[in-house]
C-alpha cells in the first residue's frame, strides 16, 4: 500500500546559488523502519506515549497515527493547558527526532522564522571589497567596464555565509528529520500565516539569495492554537485538525498519576472530581490540566491524603487565577468537596 507512505518520501536538500531553480522530483522511499514499528498502530502509540508520561486519548493517538503516516501537518486547537505543546514534545521524544520549536507572536516575520541575513558580516566584507576595489578595477577602462567587473562580485553578497537559519529553515534542513512545532500560531498575523502556507504544502521554500531549499526529510509538523483568532480556511485545508478538549475524569486521573506518581489514589480521584465540577461553572478562566497537576503537587507537599473544605480553601489559588473565580468557587466549596469525597467512595 504505497499511498499513505508516499508522504514520507525524502528529498535531497538543494542549495543552488543564484536564482531559484526547479529541481528533479524527490526520491520515493518508505517510512523509516525506526518509525514504522513505533507508528504501527494506534494502541502502540498510546502505550508508547504513556511510557513517556504523556497520556493520550484515542482521538489524540489516532491523530498522531494519521498525521505521521500521511505526512500532513497537525493543527491542534483547544483551551490553554490541555497539553497541546506537550503533545509535540512527547512525539519528538517518542520518535527520537529533535524538536524544533517556533513560538509565534505578533509581528513575527520571515527573518525571525526562516532565516536572517547577517548584514553586519556582509558589511565587513563590503569594507574589504572597498579596500580591494582598486585591485579589482585596476585593469578596467572606463566606467562601464568597471561596473561590469563590480557586477561579477555581486555574488559575494548572496552566499550562504550571510545566512542565519531560523526554526523553519532548520526544520527543513534537519539531517535526521525533526518535529517542527509552530506554537500558538493564532498569535501571529495573517501575513505570516499566508507565508506558512507555502512551506506547509510544498515543504520547500525559495530563498531569493540562495535558491530553493527542499526538505531533506519531511518534518513532522504540529501547529497549536488557543483560538484567540480563527485560522484561515487555506491554512486549515492544508492541515489535519485535532480539537483537544479538557480531559474527562478518567483520563485526567491517569494524567495525574503519570505526572505525580506519588499521589495517593483516593486523593487523586477526589481532586480530579473537584476540578471537573469547577469546570462546569461559568468562570473567567477554567483550570487547565497543568493546574490540576500543580494542585496535586501542592496537596502532596501538604501531606494531604484526602480533600476537606479547609485544605481546599487554602489552595484554591493554585488552580484559580482570578479573585472572582476564587470567590465563586468558595461559595460552592462544601458541596463540591462532599461530591468529590463521594466520587472516591464510588470508585472504592
Amino acid at each position: 500500500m504505497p499511498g499513505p507512505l508516499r508522504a514520507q518520501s525524502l528529498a535531497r536538500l538543494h542549495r543552488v546559488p543564484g536564482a531559484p531553480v526547479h529541481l528533479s522530483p524527490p526520491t520515493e522511499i518508505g517510512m523509516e523502519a525506526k518509525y514504522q514499528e513505533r507508528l504501527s498502530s494506534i494502541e502502540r502509540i498510546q502505550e508508547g506515549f504513556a511510557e513517556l508520561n504523556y497520556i493520550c486519548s484515542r482521538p489524540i493517538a489516532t491523530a498522531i497515527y494519521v498525521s505521521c503516516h500521511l505526512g500532513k501537518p497537525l493543527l491542534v486547537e483547544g483551551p490553554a493547558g490541555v497539553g497541546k505543546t506537550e503533545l509535540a514534545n512527547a512525539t519528538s521524544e517518542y520518535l527520537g527526532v529533535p524538536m524544533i520549536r517556533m513560538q509565534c507572536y505578533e509581528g513575527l516575520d520571515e527573518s525571525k522564522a526562516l532565516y536572517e541575513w547577517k548584514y553586519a558580516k556582509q558589511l565587513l566584507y563590503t569594507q574589504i571589497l572597498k579596500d580591494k576595489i582598486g585591485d579589482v578595477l585596476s585593469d578596467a577602462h572606463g566606467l562601464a567596464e568597471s561596473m561590469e567587473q563590480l557586477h561579477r562580485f555581486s555574488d559575494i553578497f548572496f552566499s550562504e555565509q550571510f545566512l542565519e537559519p531560523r526554526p523553519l529553515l532548520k526544520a527543513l534542513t534537519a539531517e535526521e528529520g525533526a518535529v517542527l512545532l509552530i506554537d500558538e500560531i493564532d498569535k501571529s498575523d495573517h501575513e505570516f500565516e499566508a507565508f506558512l502556507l507555502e512551506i506547509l504544502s510544498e515543504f520547500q521554500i525559495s530563498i531569493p539569495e540562495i535558491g530553493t531549499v527542499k526538505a531533506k526529510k519531511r518534518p513532522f509538523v504540529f501547529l497549536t492554537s488557543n483560538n484567540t483568532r480563527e485560522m484561515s480556511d487555506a491554512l486549515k485545508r492544508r492541515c489535519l485538525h485535532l480539537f483537544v478538549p479538557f480531559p474527562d475524569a478518567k483520563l485526567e486521573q491517569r494524567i495525574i498519576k503519570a505526572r505525580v506518581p506519588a499521589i495517593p489514589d483516593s486523593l487523586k480521584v477526589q481532586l480530579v472530581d473537584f476540578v471537573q465540577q469547577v469546570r462546569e461553572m461559568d468562570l473567567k478562566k477554567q483550570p487547565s490540566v497543568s493546574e490540576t497537576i500543580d494542585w496535586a503537587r501542592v496537596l502532596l507537599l501538604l501531606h494531604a491524603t484526602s480533600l476537606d473544605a479547609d485544605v481546599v480553601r487554602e489552595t484554591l489559588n493554585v488552580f484559580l487565577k482570578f479573585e472572582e473565580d476564587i470567590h465563586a468557587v468558595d461559595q460552592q466549596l462544601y458541596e463540591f468537596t462532599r461530591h468529590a469525597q463521594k466520587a472516591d467512595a464510588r470508585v472504592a
Partner: protein
Amino acid sequence: MERTFTNFLQALRGAEVRVSVAETLDAMETAELMGWGDREALKYALSLALAKTPDEKEIFDATFDQFFRFDSFRGRDGETPEANSGEELEGKAGDLLDMVQRRDETALALAMQQAAREVNVENIRFFTQRGLFTQRILGAMGIEAIDAAISAAVRSGEGGAGQAGQLREARSYLFEQVRDFVEQQLSLQGAGASAELREDRLRRSRLGNLDRRDQEQMKVIVEKIARRLVALHSRRKKLRNRGVIDIRKTMRRNYGSGGILFDLEWKQRKIDKPRVMAICDVSGSVAAVARFLLQFLYELHELLHDIRSFAFSGKLIETSSFFKDKQADDAVAAIMDRVGFMPTDYGESLSNFREKFLNDVDKKTAVIILGDGRSNFTDPRTDILKEIHDRSKRVIWLNPEPPPLWGTGDSEMRRYAPYCDLVRECNTLNHLERVVGDLLQVAQKAA
C-alpha cells in the same frame, strides 16, 4: 464503498461543513490508511481531515453516526460493506424473507444499502419523494417474494392463517425499516441540496432584493470571499525587498557614505497597493449594492493602500470615517441619514467631488463609481468625469442595471462610458467578487 463515501461527503457539505477538493483527497487517503474495520477509529481519523472547527466537529459526528448507522463495520479489517454486494437476485428474495423473520438487522442493513444504491437514493431531494423511494427500495430488495408468500399462505386456507399473520407482521417491520432509512437519507441529502444551492443562489441573486435572513448569510459569504482574496494576494506582496541587489542603485544611494555600501538597494519587484476611491450612489436600489461593495473594500483594507469612500444622491459627502469606527450596518444607516432619499443629481454630486476631493486623485488612484447613472434629466457633467479620468489611474464604473437599460430614459450611462476604463454590470455577489479580484490583479501586474 467509493459511492457511499462520496455520498457521505455530499451529506457533510449539505450540513454546512465546508469540504474542499484537497480535503476530499485527504479523507480518501485517510480512509485507505485506516480501513473500514474499526468504526470508531475511522470516525476520529476522518474528523481530522474533514471537520475543522468545533461546530464542524459536532456536525461531523452526528452526520457520521447517522450516515453509517446502517453500514456494518463488523467486517474484517479492510473489507468494505460493498464486498457483500454481489449476491444473486434469486437468492436475495429468499434471503429477504429469512432475514426479516430472523430480524437480522445487519444483513438487512446491507441489503438495504445495496438496494438504495441501485435506485440512486442519493438523488432524493424533497419529502414528497419519500414514498417513491421507499417503494423502489422495497422493490429492489425483492419484497414481491414476501407478498407472494403471504398470498400463498392465505390461499392455503385455515392452516396458513397464522403464517400469513406472521408474514404480514414481518412485512410491515421491513417497511418501517426502509421508510426510516429513506427518511434519514432525505435529511442528509435533502438538507445538502438546499444549503449548497442556497449559497449558490445567494451569490447569483440580486443584491437589491434580499430578505433579512439572506442578508446575514450574505455578510458571511462576503467575509469568506474577502479572506480568500487576502490569503491569495498577501503572499505576493511579501516578495518585496527580497532578491538580487541592484548594484547601480546601491552605489547611487550610498554616494554620500564615501563609497561604503551601507544601504543595500534590492532589485525589487514593486507592487503597488492600489489607492481606492469609491463613489457610491445611495439612492433607490443602488444602495443595497453600495452596502456590499463597501463592506468588501473595507474587509480588504490590508491589501489596499488607502480606501476612501463617498456617498451621494442629491449631494456628495465623504464617508470614509463612517467605516473606520462603525460596523458596516451602522455605517450604512448613518450614511443614509445624511444623504439618502434625496432626488439623485449626478452633476451636482460630481461637482461636489471636484471641489473638495479632485486634488487628492492621483496616478495611483483607482476610482470606482457605483451607480445607475440615472440623474433625473439634470446636467450629467461628463466634463468632470473626464477630469477625474485624466488624473487617475483607472475609472471603473459599476452599474447595477443590465446593459440593455443603459442609456434609456434618464440614464446617462452611455455618455459617461467614454471616460471610464471599465464599465461593468454589477448587481450580485459574483459580480462584485470579480470586480474586486480584477482590481487587485491589475495592481499586481503593474509591477
